[in-house]
């Protein structure tokens, strides 16, 4: 993998939030703790994990919506450092949010919602050009041109998500962070939106970071998948590889916990049921964060965080005892 193929690269990214624990004391909440990965041009990287594992924070920090506590973000072979860099970077990146009900301003018409990024960056010469661009975007996401002057509340969840996607595409981005874009939608609508993500990627050569907790959806849309647990990345590999041969004990549990929509397979499926809950990120365990729930944990796990290393081509895992149980 050479530098040029990578569109986005993250090195040792850390994002800590200071949480007040008393009147005069505060403690860092390590939402993202030393995460490194790269996303290749034109691919979809799926990011999965339980709530509170830091996957949304990764997406937001990646776009500089939060200022990273530490670490480097590279885009197109250039590090993003200065304010000017960030401004330029934001023109080429975009975000699609989870909740299509709260991410659209109820007092703006659809054309104003989609046109707002164009207004901010002054990307048109005349009103007619603005309108043309908006209608073009609406057509791309399968919205009717007569919807342009309506308000968000007049649309169903699936259509609202289309509006949100049109808005994120307004700047002609190269890289889009999709934060749980289909989890608020009904099953029959989900498939429409997933297919649209696929089509837009083919048409416009987009690169996605696709954050979701529905593993079947992520598997369907992603080329590669990364798994996070309590602020750390524990495994990353090709989508098929990670489903067929998960190596990290957490990934194994996660994969076996997915309820398969197939009664015969569900009856045969041997689930590895984890005990206990995910620990609070304020009191994260020492060493490997998963050791408190891991069936294979040893003394070494409490001492140090295992290295995130490549075990076979493109398959990264962070586990001390991997050889023992695989």
């Amino acid at each position, binding site marked *: 993998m050479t530098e040029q193929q990578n569109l986005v690269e993250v090195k040792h990214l850390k994002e800590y939030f200071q949480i007040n624990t008393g009147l005069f004391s505060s403690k860092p909440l390590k939402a993202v703790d030393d995460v490194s990965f790269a996303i290749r041009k034109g691919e979809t990287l799926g990011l999965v994990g339980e709530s509170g594992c830091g996957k949304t924070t990764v997406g937001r920090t990646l776009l500089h919506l939060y200022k990273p506590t530490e670490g480097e973000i590279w885009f197109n072979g250039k590090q993003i450092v200065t304010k000017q860099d960030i401004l330029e970077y934001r023109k080429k990146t975009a975000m699609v949010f989870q909740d299509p009900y709260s991410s659209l301003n109820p007092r703006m018409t659809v054309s104003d919602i989609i046109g707002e990024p164009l207004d901010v960056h002054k990307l048109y010469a005349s009103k007619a050009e603005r309108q043309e661009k908006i209608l073009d975007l609406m057509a791309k996401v399968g919205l009717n041109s007569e919807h342009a002057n309506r308000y968000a509340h007049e649309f169903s969840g699936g259509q609202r998500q289309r509006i949100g996607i049109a808005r994120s595409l307004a700047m002609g981005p190269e890289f889009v962070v999709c934060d749980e874009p289909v989890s608020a939608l009904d*099953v029959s609508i989900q498939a429409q939106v997933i297919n649209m993500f696929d089509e837009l990627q083919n048409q416009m050569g987009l690169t996605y970071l696709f954050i979701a907790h529905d593993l079947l959806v992520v598997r369907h849309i992603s080329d590669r998948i990364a798994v996070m647990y309590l602020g750390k990345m524990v495994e990353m590999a090709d989508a098929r590889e990670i489903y067929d041969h998960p190596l990290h004990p957490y990934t194994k549990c996660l994969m076996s916990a997915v*309820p398969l929509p197939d009664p015969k*397979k569900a009856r045969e499926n041997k689930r590895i049921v984890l005990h206990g809950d995910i620990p609070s990120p304020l009191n994260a365990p020492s060493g490997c964060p998963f050791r408190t729930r891991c069936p294979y944990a040893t003394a070494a796990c409490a001492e140090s965080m295992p290295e995130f290393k490549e075990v076979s081509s493109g398959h990264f895992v962070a586990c001390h005892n991997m050889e023992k149980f695989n």
Partner: protein
Amino acid sequence: MALLEVRDLRTSFFTPAGEVKAVNGVSFFLDHGKVLGIVGESGSGKSVTAYSIMQILEKTGRIVGGSIKFDGQELVGAGEKVMKTIRGNKISIIFQDPMTSLNPTYTIGHQLMEAIMLHTPRNKKQAYDRAVEMLRLVNVNEPEKRMKQYPFEFSGGMRQRVMIAMALACEPDILIADEPTTALDVTIQAQILELMQSLQKELGMAIIMITHDLGVVAQMCDEVIVMYAGSICEQGSADEIFYNPKHEYTKGLMRSIPTVDNDDSPLEPISGTPIDLLNMPQGCPFAPRCDAAMKICMRQRCERMQINDWHQAACWMNVKEAFEKEGGDAE
């Protein structure tokens, strides 16, 4: 006689914009110790069906027709007094959101004991013992310590366990679970489903599992009801519904979910948007979104037909197929 018999249940909400027929002629039976799944999209009437059985509808909602018989006793029109002996004692319900279904100002122990003392003739000491026993049953560690804690000290999965403990404290015959794992993470969902399965075997109760997740249905249910726009479009054993769907909506649902085997081909979504219950079409409610819709589908609703001993569906396509088999002209 079945434990629960629902016949032609109709529940409407009376809004300023008009009557919304949320449940429109639903019939099913539930036997002792069976797990029945009800699937459908939001607005299909699956939750309202459950709330109608418990009679905990919002003020604007009313059962306008049909019958619900529990153990031979008619519940529609039976009045609050009778319902109070049913709710919690005979039929219990757990809700989707464990965050809001517990009172944040009382301890877990207080809330559990309150439920137990309300429904059984136990005194405070006995209720305490029973509450601790129930917490232990649902795998809550250190139940004595947990009894003194408040809901905010519990994680989502733990709260849902408390809700299950509360629902099962009076040993109901039927447990209604309304999207019990939708708000939870996959690994916690696996824990809760496992727990429900083992408790169901241990206590021998019947479960009505309401969900939109076909994976959960496949794992938990003996029998499945598929609902669309307030009515049942298909009903049958889990294997029949998953491997031999006979309603165009069910077929569409099965094609539109990503599975482990179809990750290379694009998904086949159901076109269009969910139905507006205020403007119901005259014929089959799914016809406007159905790719296979025929003229008759727009004009007239299909009655439920028996496909085989374990399977019923309400779709004109089955009539057409039967006709074609006999060599007739379908149109």
